[in-house]
């Protein structure tokens, strides 16, 4: 019999972005779809995508979410919030404003039963540790491409703080071997010449920064579409080594299992999935991996549920083989 995985699988409802935005699936429909993959799936929500009460929690949303979690036997894993430091035109929010805004979301996560609150890097988060402990909700920064687990200053701060209520959530888009095939296909479809794609691929492989890639690409050709292709090459696909998680696993309560497309052979062209899963196994990860399908950024027609199913199958296979 195969070894049982010490971590759970699930998905962020953001994976169903296209279905949700185009009214094909309500939040409850997304949750029912996720539940169809088997018992005990973990569910992550992006708060301002689902709750009209954001940054607070609305009573209507609380009732809907709790009903659906119970009905479909899903496990709440991560509440994705934001500091939104530039929400006021013309200035950054003050320290106190930011703290107040995040405390509303910490309370929302607690009310809804989520054990982890994820936010983007911001200035106040580390100081919220006492509130996190009181709420029983871990607060985390997302480490997203082009940030790297091994050397991002905020990850280092969290390690130095060494508080069990403060951690980080690596987004697997930072563990790439190359930009995704669907990314290259989309820009080719939009008329970007092959030599531009080859240039970006080669410079990315050398670990060049976005500015360095842009400078070289401009020598060949440049327009709005090419500019976007350059930006996305480093904003979506990062150079972190999955093994960098192993020594800091105690600070990682949750994983964003970002992926772009799993093909019929079970291959993800960008994310180093076998190494990610091996690192989680070796490091003793016990949280949940939220499958985060993001190929919808380039192609709207791919079936998100089928992609999540494939992604989770790859994770199980990689775990057995690791």
């Amino acid at each position, binding site marked *: 019999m195969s070894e049982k995985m010490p971590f759970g699988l699930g998905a962020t409802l953001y994976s169903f972005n296209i279905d949700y*935005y185009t009214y094909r699936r309500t939040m409850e429909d997304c949750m029912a779809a996720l539940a169809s993959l088997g018992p005990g799936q973990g569910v992550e929500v992006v708060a301002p*995508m689902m709750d009209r009460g*954001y940054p607070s929690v609305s009573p209507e949303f609380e009732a809907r979410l709790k009903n659906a979690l119970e009905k479909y036997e899903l496990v709440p894993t991560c509440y994705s919030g934001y500091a939104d*430091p530039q929400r006021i035109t013309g200035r950054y929010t003050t320290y106190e404003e930011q703290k107040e805004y995040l405390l509303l979301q910490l309370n929302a996560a607690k009310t809804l039963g989520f054990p982890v609150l994820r936010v983007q*890097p911001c*200035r106040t988060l580390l100081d919220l540790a006492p509130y996190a402990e009181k709420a029983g909700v871990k607060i985390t920064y997302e480490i997203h491409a082009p940030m790297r687990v091994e050397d991002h200053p905020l990850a280092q701060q969290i390690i130095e703080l060494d508080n069990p209520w403060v951690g980080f959530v690596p987004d697997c888009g930072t563990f790439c071997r190359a930009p995704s095939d669907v990314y290259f296909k989309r820009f080719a479809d939009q008329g970007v010449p092959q030599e531009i794609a080859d240039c970006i691929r080669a410079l990315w492989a050398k670990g060049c920064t976005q500015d360095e890639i842009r400078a070289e690409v401009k020598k060949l050709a440049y327009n709005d579409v090419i500019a976007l292709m350059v930006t996305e090459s480093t904003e979506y696909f990062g150079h972190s080594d999955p093994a960098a998680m192993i020594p800091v696993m105690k600070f990682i309560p949750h994983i964003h299992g970002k992926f772009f497309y799993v093909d019929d052979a079970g291959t993800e062209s960008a994310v180093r999935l076998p190494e990610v899963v091996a690192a989680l196994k070796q490091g003793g990860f016990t949280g949940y991996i939220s499958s985060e399908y993001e190929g919808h950024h380039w192609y709207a027609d791919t079936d998100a549920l089928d992609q999540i199913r494939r992604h989770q199958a790859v994770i199980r296979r990689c775990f057995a083989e690791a």
Partner: protein
Amino acid sequence: MFDELMIHSERLTAKSGTDVALDIRLPWYRSLPLSCVERLEFTVDGAAVPPEKTVLLSDGVPYPAEKLRELSETQWFVLDTKQAVLTLDAPLTPGTHEVALAMQLRVPYRDTNYGVPGIEETYIQFASCRRMLTV
């Protein structure tokens, strides 16, 4: 993202005088405060509609396009359409007209410096859409 879905209406609705109305959507995956709508610019048959003649209705309250930047406490929920009312120079003739919309969003959480102290810039998302609508 979602540029082509930004103009939600199939038709332009004639209102009083030279006003026409249509429903639009936020071209982003999550709700944003109205203050993050930095530009809301329509053209009808190639003619730009001035900002003071562009009004967005939110919960029944009309806001001129240039006032949106002040509304940091009012969320545009991602699933909601909002009605835009445009005051044109002359009534539109019955038939089809080309409507274009350019929207510029300030993404309030995308710190271009990734949380590290230093020079921080504003992350801007630009979306555009063009459709033929019938009056």
